[in-house]
Structure formats: structure tokens, C-alpha cells
């Protein structure tokens, strides 16, 4: 049976700068996985490669047994993507309803009309993520609400897998925990596998995620307790010299 995510000897570079070097790992469903690593570790590049937004220089990535470069359309039907909020252009006046609906409309052919059935679906997914007012402008939402709206956008197409880029960024700790709980609930109740990139593990440490320690290469894969050992952390975070007792894992704190 094909692995849900199979990354095999993948390398990628931006010109002479190596972003990923011979990365290999495999995840079988069900999983709730967090990719951790310092700034410039290649975490976002990894996500973009998985989405087919970038093409590996070497190696291959298969999701549900499909090659992400050759069978991009199949991948995109089954995968929901939640971008980093810093990559969103807040200057564009777009409502929550428009944002979420595009998750469904993008699967149609033009003209993409907001029908009653899509509006109903929008309301349904907004209820799942705990948002009420679909007529609000995206820019008027708080950080946590924005993240929920983006998750709703990914959910509306009923994906089997969610890929999230820094879903905890620019949120306070309580909000980070709420988002982590929401994702875990989706994983448990809806059977959606979650693959997220984060600087911090602490908001979801109690959810016992699978952790991939990445810094251009994969340094460890496994349950948090196995992976987050001092020897692994020192290799993935070269600046780390000692780990204070009871520290909160994550680059911001390392």
C-alpha cells in the first residue's frame, strides 16, 4: 500500500544556496505531524515541493501514491493548503465568505459563481472552525480568526490531508493552543491527516504529534519523546549549546 506521504532523496536549491539536501521520510495515515527546524531550514520549501509549487532538483515526492510533479491536479484535489499569514496581501478587500468559497470554486471551471449550495457549505465549514460572520472583511479579523478562515478555506474541498505553513505564527500562546486543538479535532473526528510546519511544538506537545526535525536534512523522525533528544536538537539547531530544564521547545525559545 502506498504511503500517504513519501519523500525520497529530495534535494532543492535556490541558485547556489541549498534549501534541502537528500531529504527522505515516509508517513503512513493516520498522522498528525509537525515539521520543526530553525529559520532557513527548508520547512516552507518542503511544503511548496509537496504542493507542486516547486519541482525537486533530485528525488521525488509522492502523496497517496501520486507524483506531485506529474500528477499535480490529483494531489490538489485531495490536499488542503493553509499558507503563512505573512504571505497574504491584506491590502486586498476580500470577505471571509469569498476567501472560504474560493476553496470550493477553484475546483470548478469559470465562470465561478457563488451559488446557494456553496454559500451553505461556507457556513458549514465556518461553524466547524468556530467562525460566525462570513460577511466580515478578512482584514477585520483577529490573527486567530484569520487562521481559522484559512483553515476553513482548506476544509471546504473536503481534503484527506492538510498542509499548513506556520499556523501558529503571530498568535498569542492561548490562540496557538486553540488552533492546535482545532487541527487535532479535525484529525480525530474527520480523519484528516495533518502535516504542519512550525517553529514551536509547545502548543501541541500534549497531542503527541509525530515530529520531523529538519534543517536542510532530516535529523530525526518519530514521536516527540523520541525525537526531541538533546543530541538530535544540537544537530538540527547548531547554535544550541544547552537545554534548560522544562524548556518550551521551539526556535523562539531554543
Amino acid at each position, binding site marked *: 500500500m502506498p504511503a500517504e506521504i513519501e519523500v525520497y532523496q529530495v534535494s532543492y536549491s535556490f541558485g547556489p544556496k541549498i534549501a534541502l539536501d537528500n531529504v527522505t521520510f515516509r508517513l503512513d495515515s493516520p498522522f498528525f505531524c509537525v515539521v520543526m527546524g530553525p529559520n532557513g531550514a527548508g520547512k516552507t520549501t518542503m511544503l*511548496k515541493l509537496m*504542493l507542486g*509549487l516547486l519541482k525537486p532538483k533530485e528525488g521525488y515526492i509522492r502523496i497517496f501514491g501520486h507524483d506531485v510533479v506529474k500528477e499535480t*491536479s490529483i494531489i*490538489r*484535489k485531495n*490536499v488542503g*493548503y493553509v*499558507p503563512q499569514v505573512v*504571505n*497574504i*496581501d491584506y*491590502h*486586498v*478587500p*476580500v*470577505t471571509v465568505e*469569498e*476567501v472560504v468559497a*474560493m*476553496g470550493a*470554486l*477553484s*475546483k470548478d471551471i*469559470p*465562470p*465561478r459563481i457563488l451559488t446557494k449550495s456553496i454559500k451553505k457549505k461556507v457556513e458549514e465549514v465556518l461553524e466547524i472552525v468556530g467562525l460566525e460572520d462570513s460577511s466580515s*472583511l*478578512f482584514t477585520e479579523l483577529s490573527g486567530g480568526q484569520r487562521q481559522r478562515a*484559512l483553515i476553513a*478555506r482548506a476544509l471546504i*474541498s473536503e481534503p484527506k490531508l492538510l498542509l499548513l505553513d506556520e499556523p501558529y505564527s503571530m498568535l498569542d500562546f492561548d490562540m496557538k493552543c486553540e488552533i492546535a486543538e482545532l487541527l487535532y479535532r479535525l484529525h480525530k473526528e474527520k480523519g484528516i491527516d495533518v502535516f504542519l510546519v512550525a517553529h514551536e511544538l509547545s502548543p501541541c506537545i500534549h497531542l503527541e504529534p509525530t515530529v520531523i526535525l529538519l534543517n536542510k536534512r532530516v535529523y530525526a523522525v518519530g514521536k516527540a519523546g523520541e525525537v526531541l533528544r538533546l543530541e538530535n536538537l544540537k544537530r538540527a539547531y547548531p547554535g544550541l549549546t544547552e537545554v534548560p530544564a522544562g524548556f518550551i521547545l521551539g526556535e523562539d525559545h531554543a
Partner: protein
Amino acid sequence: MLELLTLTYMLAVAGGVLVGAISLPLVLSRSTLFALTMTHSVLGGAILGIYLNAVFNLGVPVPMVATLTALTLSILAAELSERIFSEDVAIALTVTIATTITIIFSYLTIQVSSTGLSEAWLYVAGTSAIATVGDLTKMMTAAIIVAPLIHLISRELKYIAFDRDGATAMGLNVRVYRYLFFSLSALATSTLASTLGVLATHVLLAVPGAVAIRFGKKGSLTVSYAAAVILALTGYLTAQLLGIPPSGGIGLVSGAVILGLVIRHERR
């Protein structure tokens, strides 16, 4: 006289519709600079057309050469920014090419035609002070092509401007939308420049979109249309009252609108 005035104001309305359609997506996608680049391409294309007609006696309509040049350079800009450079660098390179064409063929045109440069100057100042049925037909044809197509893809354009990577990941063909939008912008800019003039087109392109974002909560295209039509009409009227070219009138009214937006923003 009445007929001429009617024709002139109809031209202003048609121009307003054309500008209203492209201005908002241009502002939302931060591509106003690109559209302004197209005015340089139109000028370069016009001078190239005048030169070719003068030397080879081809009898090719100059606006057609200007439009084709603008379309070619718009596709080049889209391709460069998709493949190699950031959008501003791609635009800068395209402007360089357009300006080089303008300079070289201006020099060559002077050698072969005594009226060539003054003909080209009409592209800068505009011909619409004496609007013709031909101008109106051209403007309406462009509006009929551009406005419905922009409406058809406006949701996608807005969405790509909001989150380009997300749009791609969801399956939108961002590259095709970009090419289509750049081509429509080039067509609109070329038509506007050959009737209202390059200077008026410069002024008109950004203001309606900016007004739509400021006054329409969701950046409504209707507000963009309304702003563009009112701007064009009042610009023409101002020009007529002051006895200046239409581009001057549009420039004055646009300046007043921008000033109004700034004052409104400061008072908030």
C-alpha cells in the same frame, strides 16, 4: 457642434467604462506600474508604425502597430516575471525596451518624415479634443472586449492578488490569468492612449481603482466604473471650460480627487 460634443462625451463615457474595468484589478494586484509601462510601449509602437509606413509605404494602421507592440511587450513582461525576475525588474526591462524603440525610431522617423513626430505626439497629448466616430468605435470595441472578460475573471484576479501561492495550490492556473489580464490591460491602455493620449491614460489608470478601495468596502467594480466615468466626464468638461486638452482636464480633476482622498484619510 452639438454632434461633436455628444461624440466627445460619449467617448469619455466609453473610456470611463474601459478604465473602470481594468483600474481596480490593476490596483489590487499592484500592477499599476505595469499598465503605465504599457503606455510607453504604445508610444514606441506608434512611432515604429509611423516609421514603417513612411519608409516602406505599408499603409498599416498605426494604432494596430501600437497595440501589437503593447501586447507583445505585455506578454514579455508577464513571461519575464513568471520565469526569471521579480515583477518590478521585469517591468523595468520592458520599459527599457519600449523607450529604446521610441528613441531609435523617433530619430529615424525625423530623417524620413517631416510630420512623423507630430503624428506621434498625438499619442502623448491625445486626439480626443476632436473626437471622431472612429475614436468612439475603437473605444467601444475595446470596452466590449475588455469589460466582460475582466468581469468573468475578476473573482480569480482578486483571489490571486490576495494569496498567489494559495490560489496556485488550489488549482487556479495563475499563469494563464496573469497573461490574460496583462493582455487585456495592454489592449485597454493602447486604446486609451491612442484616443485620450498617453498622459491622460497615465492619470486615469490608478485613480478609479484607488477610489473603489477607499469608498467601496469590498473594492467594488461598480464603484470603479462610476469613478472612472465621472472622472472622464468631469475631466472633459473642465478641459472644455478652461480651453485646454482633455488630458489636462482629466489630470486636474484626478489631482483634486487624490487630494480629496488624502484629506479624508487625514481627518479620520
